């Protein structure tokens, strides 16, 4: 499975929060901010919404991501795959919650949004992804998507979902595709997901709105990210390693070290110092086994 998100910082922001109803936090670097309408998102920014929040993020190419409540979203914005021209595709990562992703209108654009359970690639679709505690769902509102499941044995064969089809996969079970979404699924969607909201990007085009700084991130703020797929969490080690010097953060990392062993060299560097009588770099490889 190739879910190594290329978290390369881009020089300019390509995403803007154009609607925010309710509270949401922005995690940028090692700091937590209060998100606001008009804030431009940088690559690798993390958006975490409150219980009943509705947020819309619009990208420069016309694509958009609408987020529901209790959602964790990583704005990656980077080339999709090795074979694709840089700048024509985008990657995003949804850790949990609800997201409706609408592709932009530009030709040759490709999009990929990954989750811990599957990755979705498309060029012209509108689809809703729900990652609940017990199941993951995808409803293709229009267009077509290609979905690749991620299991313990790696990625499965790609499945094509057409407009109107509804994919569900309960924890520990095989996936199922239904011709229509369930009423239970529709009932969980915010009203904003059911309408096509006109773009509000022009309102914030030439404005620079800074998010309000809250505080440095705590372990609880980012715990879910630290424990998710290895490919996603590994780049976060470098990003958040300075927080390891915070006693509370450090102690929490140590308590949950088995869930993110890649932090072991950061927490206990002495264990990884080369010793004269042992072969170097053996320990770090062991840490990456998980």
């Amino acid at each position, binding site marked *: 499975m190739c879910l190594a998100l290329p978290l390369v910082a881009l020089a300019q922001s390509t995403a803007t929060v154009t609607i925010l109803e309710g509270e949401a936090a922005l995690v940028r670097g090692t700091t937590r901010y209060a998100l606001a309408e008009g804030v431009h998102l940088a690559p690798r920014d993390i958006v975490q919404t409150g219980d009943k929040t509705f947020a819309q993020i619009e990208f420069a190419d016309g694509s958009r991501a609408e987020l529901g409540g209790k959602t964790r979203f990583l704005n990656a914005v980077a080339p999709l795959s090795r074979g694709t021209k840089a700048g024509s595709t985008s990657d995003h990562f949804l850790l949990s919650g609800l997201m409706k992703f609408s592709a932009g209108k530009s030709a040759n654009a490709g999009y990929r949004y990954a989750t811990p359970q599957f990755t979705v690639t498309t060029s012209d679709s509108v689809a809703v992804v729900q990652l609940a505690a017990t199941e993951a769902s995808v409803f293709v*509102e229009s267009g077509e998507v290609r979905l690749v499941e991620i299991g313990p044995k790696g990625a499965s064969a790609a499945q094509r979902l057409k407009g*109107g089809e509804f994919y569900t996969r309960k924890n520990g079970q095989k996936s199922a595709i239904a*011709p*229509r*979404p369930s009423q239970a699924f*529709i009932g969980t*969607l915010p009203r904003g997901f*059911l*309408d*096509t909201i006109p773009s509000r990007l022009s309102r914030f085009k030439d404005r620079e709105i800074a998010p309000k700084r809250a505080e440095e991130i705590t372990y609880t703020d980012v715990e879910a990210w630290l424990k998710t797929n290895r490919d996603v969490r590994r780049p976060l080690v470098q990003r958040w390693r300075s927080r390891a010097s915070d006693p509370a953060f450090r102690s929490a990392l140590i308590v949950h070290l088995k869930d993110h062993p890649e932090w072991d060299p950061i927490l206990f560097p002495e264990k990884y110092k080369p010793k004269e009588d042992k072969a170097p770099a053996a320990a770090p490889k062991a840490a990456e086994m998980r």
Partner: protein
Amino acid sequence: MKLILKFNLVFVVVFLAGLAAAGYVSWTLLQKNARDEVVQNARLVMETALSTRAYTSSQLRPLLETQMKYTFLPQTVPAYSATEVLNGLRKSFPEYRYKEAVLNPTNPRNRAADWEADIVNQFRNGPERAEIVGERDTPAGGAFYIARPIKITTEPCLYCHSTVDAAPKTMIDKYGPANGFGWKLNEIVGAQIVAIPTAVPLERANRAYQTFMISLTAVFVVIAVALNLMLYFTVIRPVTQLSKLADQVSLGNMDVPEFTVKRRDEIGVLAESFSRMRKSLVEAMKMLEG
């Protein structure tokens, strides 16, 4: 027979004849006007329905297209919105009934009853007919109706009614695949029918007729009283007085007081002539006695 009695007899005969003629003419006109008014109101109802249909299909439906991919909204159907709007109108005007009677409807409540199906078939057999106005007997009494054909003139109508495969899936979820399909472009599939009980125009005509006849009678009575008073004071009373005076003079009573009337009309001239005659008679008697 006294003069006033003769006058009143003639007056009453003329009055009754005039009242009967006016009653007949006004009853005929009022009934016709009441029916015309009801027809006009029915056409207004019909136009309201058509405007609602146009608004729904041109403005409302496009806004709800996204929602229609999740749940079927009957509010986007022109026939449904027109019927609902006019059901609201019926709260203020309960006598008006509106129905979009269709031979093969999607929504069962629009299925044409037998007499409605006859009207639809009249339109289908004579496509040049733009409107049918008529009356029919019902168990609740006579009913007046006005009907116009529902013709499929644009392709978007067929989006929901051509084939099951082409129809929105959410619509099939709600109404099933059995009814409301197979419609063709330029086909007359139903009729808009506005029905009103016949009693409504008749009741209106009756109310106007009663008001008119009571007013007319009141005018005649006032005129009769005024003419009688005028006749009594200007003719009958002075003539009676003059008659009594003439009686006294004819019996040789020359001492009766003068009949003094300061009027320049025929009665005044008669009084002056009588005074001169009396004076002449007194002079003549004196000459005979001398």
